[in-house]
């Protein structure tokens, strides 16, 4: 078991390295180097960068030296938690991303948890009571959830929230809490705002997971080991949760890996519509403005999240299905 996790972790480290190379390549893609763009940018707004300052920056980023030196210099900064300057914002990238990264993770996790909390029981119910009215209802709602683009859902909910409840459902904070210092009240404010975006972002995934759970469980429910368990005298609820559901959980665990970054990058439009302070819209703006240190950093972080998510799902899978461990050795 430990050897398995160790091997996975080692692979993860290698993957992260590959991602960092890729992120660096993205930063290098636009014509001209960072300092020339920086000077041009400054000039367009009327300020002047002194030759001294420019030279300083060139040395810091190793510009003019071979690519691998530049990469190592950048990595050196990254490891110390410095990701370079954002040109558009004229502030360090860490400051620009700042809270957004944590808020993104909070929103993503909330959406993921909501997906599971809704999809697991509904999927189980749908399979166990196949073709019951409840199953048909879940199927109906599920397909609608899959078919409606979630930015449209976001708009509709914004409209109804505004017209009928006179509430502003966008954003993650009330206006007065927007720039407040972190405090208990601000966390509570976040909690109150979280369910709506989590629901909108998680709905398509929920619908999909209900269908997956239902289909998997229907296959498993007919297996002889379920009859064996039933013939032992277990209660129906206990035997279904212990045996077929455990086997049917497999695809749930294996999708965690890509669910996390998907919620970030796939939710750009929703985040714009709802005005969520997450990294999605930031990535979009950075790409449009060719703000390469910012874009590269976000890509690097998204990659890191994917790798961590995959590692988590690998470990969960071994726990759910010990056969995987046997195949490895």
């Amino acid at each position: 078991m430990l050897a398995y996790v160790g091997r996975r972790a080692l692979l993860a480290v290698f993957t992260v390295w590959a991602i960092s190379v890729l992120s660096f390549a993205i930063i290098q893609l636009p014509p001209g180097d960072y300092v020339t763009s920086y000077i041009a940018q400054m000039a367009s707004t009327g300020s002047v960068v002194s030759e001294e300052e420019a030279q300083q920056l060139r040395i810091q980023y190793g510009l003019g030296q071979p690519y691998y030196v530049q990469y190592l210099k950048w990595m050196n900064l990254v490891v110390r938690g410095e990701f370079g300057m954002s040109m558009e914002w004229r502030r360090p990238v860490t400051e620009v991303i700042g809270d957004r990264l944590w808020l993104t993770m909070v929103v993503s996790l909330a959406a993921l948890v909501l997906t599971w909390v809704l999809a697991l029981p509904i999927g189980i119910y749908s399979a166990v009571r196949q073709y019951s009215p409840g199953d048909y209802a879940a199927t109906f709602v599920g397909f609608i959830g899959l078919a409606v683009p979630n930015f449209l859902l976001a708009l509709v909910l914004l409209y109804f929230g505004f017209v009928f409840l006179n509430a502003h459902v966008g954003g993650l904070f009330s206006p007065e809490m927007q720039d407040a210092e972190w405090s208990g009240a601000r966390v509570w404010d976040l909690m109150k705002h979280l369910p709506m975006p989590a629901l909108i972002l998680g709905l398509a995934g929920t619908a999909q997971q209900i269908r997956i759970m239902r289909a998997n469980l229907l296959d498993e429910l007919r297996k002889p080991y379920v009859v064996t368990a039933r013939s032992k005298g277990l209660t129906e609820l206990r035997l279904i949760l212990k045996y077929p559901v455990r086997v049917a959980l497999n695809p749930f665990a294996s999708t965690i890996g890509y669910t996390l970054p998907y919620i970030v990058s796939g939710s750009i439009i929703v985040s714009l519509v709802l005005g969520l302070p997450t990294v999605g819209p930031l990535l979009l703006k950075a790409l449009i403005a060719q703000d390469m240190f910012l874009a590269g950093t976000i890509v690097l972080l998204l990659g890191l999240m994917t790798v961590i998510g995959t590692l988590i799902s690998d470990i969960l899978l071994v726990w759910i299905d010990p056969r995987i461990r046997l195949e490895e050795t």
Partner: protein
Amino acid sequence: MAAEPLLSVRNLKTYFAQDEGLVKAVDGVSFDVAPGSTMAIVGESGCGKSVTARSILRIVDRPGRIVEGEILFRRGEAATDLATLDANGAEMRAIRGAEIALIFQEPMSSFSPVHSVGNQIDEAILLHQAVSRRGARDKTIEMLRRVGVPSPEERVDQLSNQLSGGLRQRAMIAMALSCQPTLLIADEPTTALDVTTQTQILELMRQLQKEDGMAIMLITHDLGVVAEMATDVAVMYLGRVVEQAPVDAIFHDPKHPYTRALLRSIPRIRSRTRERLTPIAGSVPHPFDRPHGCSFHPRCTDFIAGRCDASAPELGPAGPGHAVSCFLYE
């Protein structure tokens, strides 16, 4: 039958309401199982053997439903009618696994692939006996040793796919017998095993029966297994018992044309060389298209026109402990 039967099934009917129509999988089955005896239920595929077994345990899959009949199961002095109990109620669950246990045909998939074998046997013990987790595990290891699983202390923590087919079936038997049931239902327990393993498993079941004194209801289509194991035989055809008798009477004095045809269709070691086997003419009718009258009449060599296709015969006595459902014996 001299002794009070342990299990007495009377006119059991289990129907499946499907979109295409009503499938009468079990349609008026009656038979008795005496304590400590081995009753073999014999018949072709789809004759309702397995559904009968599942009806007794009340684990028929939906949309199957027991629509009529009694399943009298003796517990101590009194008999309980299992057909009237709530299938998932506490009383039925207390009987299931503890007093009536089931082993069935696919040792490959009868254990959960993601739980250890020991965990699944422990569960049965913990469910029906007042023992600690530790005690259940000791009992599990003891049971595995009894059924001849080598080094049970290690095997207990293995997954079922780390065990061979024969070992899996032994573990299955260990699980079924862990609570000392009075009735063991074995649904084709050796069909999926090779012949050597098959003999070993049957031998094991016989030995455990001698030690524990439980009755076995053995469901099979293999008349060789019947001859080796059974004390009594019930022959089923299309959801009904057509003949029930002690095992010797079935092999030496078969009454029902279907039983006689079955026996003619299997090879014998001491037969003359190049003797032809006689297959049963025609095939099993589709369940939606059950023949009117005696359901065997279209394939029967002794068919009486105007009688067999008009009404169905009842199961009636035809000798000591021998019952047959055929107009030839009325």
